[in-house]
């Protein structure tokens, strides 16, 4: 379940739940004046908390490290394709709104939108 390097530009080390040492893939893209922060779950190479569980705690750490304002970015969580035979490990992208209620917090991105953001 090794995650391809194509999913990230850098590995971002962060403090997860209960300050556990954790890692995720990170890409930052600017499109039409909007900053897209894309965090990718690394599964076996993440020794700590998942990107989803870490949630806003991770977003805050990225913003602090990169000089960004959480309210001004588009924050995306990526579960990468790991070429597993199991469909639960297919690629998916979700936009996360940390200021919305639980029902509206996550929005799955259609493929076209992902392609536009990533320039694929």
């Amino acid at each position, binding site marked *: 379940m090794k995650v391809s390097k194509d999913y990230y530009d850098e590995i971002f080390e962060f403090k997860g739940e*209960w300050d556990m040492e954790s890692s995720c893939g990170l890409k930052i893209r600017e499109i039409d004046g909007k900053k897209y922060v894309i965090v990718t779950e690394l599964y076996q190479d993440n*020794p700590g*908390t998942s990107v*989803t569980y870490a949630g806003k705690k991770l977003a805050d750490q990225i913003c602090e490290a990169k000089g960004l304002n959480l309210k001004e970015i588009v924050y995306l969580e990526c579960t990468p394709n790991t070429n597993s035979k*199991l469909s*639960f490990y297919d690629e998916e992208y979700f936009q996360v709104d940390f200021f919305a209620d*639980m029902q509206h917090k996550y929005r799955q991105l259609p493929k076209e939108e992902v392609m536009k953001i990533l320039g694929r």
Partner: protein
Amino acid sequence: METIKLKLIYPKWNKLPGQTTFNLPPHGPVAFAATLPEYVDISFTDENVEPIDFDEECDLVALSMMLTTQVKRGWAIADEYHKRGKKVLAGGISTMLHAEEMVNHVDSVFLGESEGRSEQVILDWKNGCLKKIYNYMGNQPDISLVGPCRRDLYKRELYNHKGVQMVDLFHASRGCRFSCYPCAVSYLGGRKFRPRPVDKVVEDMAGIDNNRLFIVDNSLAQNKEWEKELFTAIAPLKKKWISHTIEDDPEILDLASKAGAWYVYQAVYDTSDYIKERVKRYHDYGIGVEGTILFGLDNQTEDDIKRLIDFLGEIDLDLAEFTIFAPFPHTKGHDDLLRQGRIFDFDWDHYNAGQVVYQPKNMSPEKLQDLYDYAWKSFYASETQESKMFRLFCNVALREMEEGTYRPRDRRLINKSFGRDVDRSKRNVNVRVQ
């Protein structure tokens, strides 16, 4: 140091209705107890087999919890002790999984493994500076520090059904190199397989006053050389044991059999010839198989589940255990369903793997629940679960008789079942708790 009286409690949970009732002596509390200093005088209560006397004299209370279905009961117990002015600590697997909520209900939460660390908690309490959180997540102690559990704390007669002693739980390793979709073990114990030194395992196992064990390690199939060494070393003890998966390798299966493998829990996740042959290979080495069948993953349709249930009739399982997928915190399953807005029930009492708490992808929650109920009924239609268990029991008893290790039933407890009087007019199954 003056003696400190610690009340150690393993909270009860509602057992799944309709299944055979049995209670095993819990492992977590006695593993934790072994890490406490000698001046701590422990009184242990497993609430599944006896009531708690909240007025029993004690200085401090510790809750040890393994299952998600124990946490709410644990919080209620903590409330009772708070009324009596006692401080309450919490630790164990479900404390780690539900730590964010746990801190709101107890005085101190211990996260991680306690070897070499618990005395500091006791000293902090004694000095009036108990911390809210002792956080050792991701910081596992040296595995060689893991010593024999405090099994002397068990009231043995409570883990006995009609004179037959239940198996003792035992662990030969911690951590898991796999990170399976529904499982939180790699979060809890780390993604590195950490075997205990084999000589310590042998010494520990030899000291257990029980010839039947359940080796609770997540999977023994982590390292072939370790498995060979382990099985060779424990064979002379002539214990009989249950475990999770063993490596699918003729040499290792042979060694496991000679080392006393009684039966294994083997996941049956599809209807392939591989599964059929895997079960057969265990049987070829005299090892029984309890199939564990998980329903409700996104890749399963109603037809898939029906086919899987039919398939069980073709593969000669000794026992089968059916579960419904439960999105436990800190699993990928939980993250996926949370993002997709599919979890509709966050009542932890319902996370018993027998109740649907989320919207399945390919069917309604009601349909999944029906299929689960149907699976139990159909597998045990021709022979009850209790009767199939009895056959496995007979197999092991015969092997023990051949080896001269068989212990007859305790006649004094022949009319007792887990501390209660046997009612022979009723089947030994769990009843639904409202």
